[in-house]
């Protein structure tokens, strides 16, 4: 199999807002709720086109989530959009009680997630969100890799009767190949198949994992890339089948290595007695460096070259 080079699409956030506008056009019950975040959420045009379907609560994230849950309980299809860094910790108790525990089908949209706001510093990084939300019952965590997944993740969230957290970055993302043009929450996408190295990645780290797979291929090493877009519920079957097939597994995420995708996979494999050489690539437990997302990714080895080297090390080559 020859892995193709990638063409650049648009930011997942742009795909989110375009898809939401498409939904809102035909359904008055679709509401966007923002905390002075319509600009960063790419929802300014949405607000202009559908002024009755956007609710501004000001810079008040706790109220944002409480109001969203109240609206959802009254039959509205609510998308509460706020920078992921604030949404998932400032309003964590509202997410836990008002949304998840009270089972309100709110879609929480984490804007400019991970280190999208890289240069703005740790206050604006959200590299904890998956860890904190994984520990809360009854919330689906979806981290789309590209525009295709962003589009279908939003459609799936709109139809879901359960709470969903969607995490979107703001960098223009390449259109990834996939073995099946199909998206389902909880079912991972196979980006390319291989049997020596497996990259299990999510969100904006899938693209560099794919690039690393291309570099490995050029060295005659076969690599599989999985977009594990749903972290909760984890596609356990996929993780297990990859572990049975491949010699080494590398997980990649725009998240702290504590409590994210990597630990979710590691925990599963240990309990399944599948002991595969395994490496979690993400941000270590330290004050994260600042700069552009690309610079931060590169510093922590989330790049084609960095992931290539990690794979070679794990293969003892």
């Amino acid at each position: 199999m020859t892995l193709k080079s990638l063409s650049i699409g648009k930011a997942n956030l742009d795909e989110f807002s375009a898809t939401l506008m498409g939904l809102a056009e035909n359904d008055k019950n679709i509401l966007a709720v923002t905390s002075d975040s319509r600009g960063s959420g790419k929802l300014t045009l949405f607000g202009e086109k559908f002024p009755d379907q956007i609710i501004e609560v000001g810079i008040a994230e706790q109220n944002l989530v409480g109001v969203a849950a109240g609206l959802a309980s009254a039959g509205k299809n609510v998308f509460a959009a706020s920078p992921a860094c604030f949404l998932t910790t400032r309003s964590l108790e509202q997410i836990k009680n008002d949304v998840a525990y009270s089972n309100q089908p709110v879609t929480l949209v984490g804007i400019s997630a991970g280190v999208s706001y890289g240069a703005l510093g740790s206050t604006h990084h959200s590299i904890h969100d998956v860890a904190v939300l994984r520990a809360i019952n009854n919330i689906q965590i979806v981290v789309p890799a590209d525009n295709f997944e962003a589009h279908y993740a939003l459609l799936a969230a709109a139809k879901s009767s359960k709470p969903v957290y969607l995490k979107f970055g703001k960098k223009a993302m390449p259109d990834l190949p996939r073995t099946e043009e199909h998206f389902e929450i909880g079912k991972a996408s196979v980006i390319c198949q291989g049997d020596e190295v497996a990259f299990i990645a999510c969100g904006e780290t899938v693209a560099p994992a794919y690039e690393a797979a291309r570099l490995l291929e050029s060295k005659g090493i076969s690599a599989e890339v999985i977009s594990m877009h749903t972290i909760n519920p984890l596609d356990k079957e996929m993780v297990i089948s990859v572990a049975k097939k491949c010699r080494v597994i590398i997980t990649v995420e725009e998240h702290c290595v504590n409590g994210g995708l990597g630990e979710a996979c590691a925990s599963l494999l240990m309990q399944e007695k599948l002991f595969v050489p395994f490496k979690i690539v993400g941000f270590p437990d330290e004050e994260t460096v600042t700069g552009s997302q690309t610079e931060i990714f590169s510093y922590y080895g989330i790049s084609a070259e960095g992931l290539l080297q990690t794979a070679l090390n794990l293969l003892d080559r």
Partner: protein
Amino acid sequence: MKKLYTDLELQIKSVNYRKSILKYIKIAHAGHTGGSLSCTDILNVLYNDVLNVSSDYFSDQNRDRYIQSKGHSVEALYVVLADQGFFPESDLETLCRFKSKYVGHPTRKVNGIEFNTGALGHGLPLSAGIALASKKDNAGYRVFTLLGDGELAEGSNWEAAMMAAHYKLDNLVAILDHNTLQITGRNRDVLSPYPIDEKFKAFGWSVISVDGNSIPQLRETFRKVPVEKEKPTLIIANTIKGKGVSYMEDVKKWHHGVPTDEQYRQAMEELDQYCAELKLI
């Protein structure tokens, strides 16, 4: 159509509610006694005289909503809901037992309860969201939420207060169970919320005060809301924590105290005696 009760009938109901609250707290060996007794009359008037809510049509999208933000006073809510026919009162014998759905804070597992509350500072944002949905749909239903006075220290209340005024949610009514005590002591000593009326007025609310243990006054007050068009209403209901039982009244240790057998007997006697006096009037 709801039955129209006289003030005396509702006053007698309050006595019976208080007896039931104490009965199930006694059986469970747990519960928030003082706060449940302070808000009993408020819940009584809401469910029997104000809310367009019934166990017959609880799934009706246009029903009024009641969100108990001070979730710890759940025993009062359970007893009133049982009286409204949402479930048999005898179910409350399992209150706080292993795997009982009658948990020590409101949960939607119990018929008649809208939201899982109990962490403070959540009811007002939720209620503002529901009130806004009602406005968007021109549905006309109203939202009532019961706040504790100690709870006002939670900042989320003030986020929601600002937003409710901004959106002119005159279908939103917050009732403050102003019993002046919280678990550590007097509100004014723990962290003063005062002046409560001026704060809410400054946030754009109509504010009205009432004796929150007076059935006639509560009925009259609820008939007045919204006090001003396009403004949410705060009803400051001045209550007595532990109301109805002499040794519990205005004593902080009864926040979640459970009476001994002797104390329980005395409480029942006092409530029965009060009920007998009411019937003589």
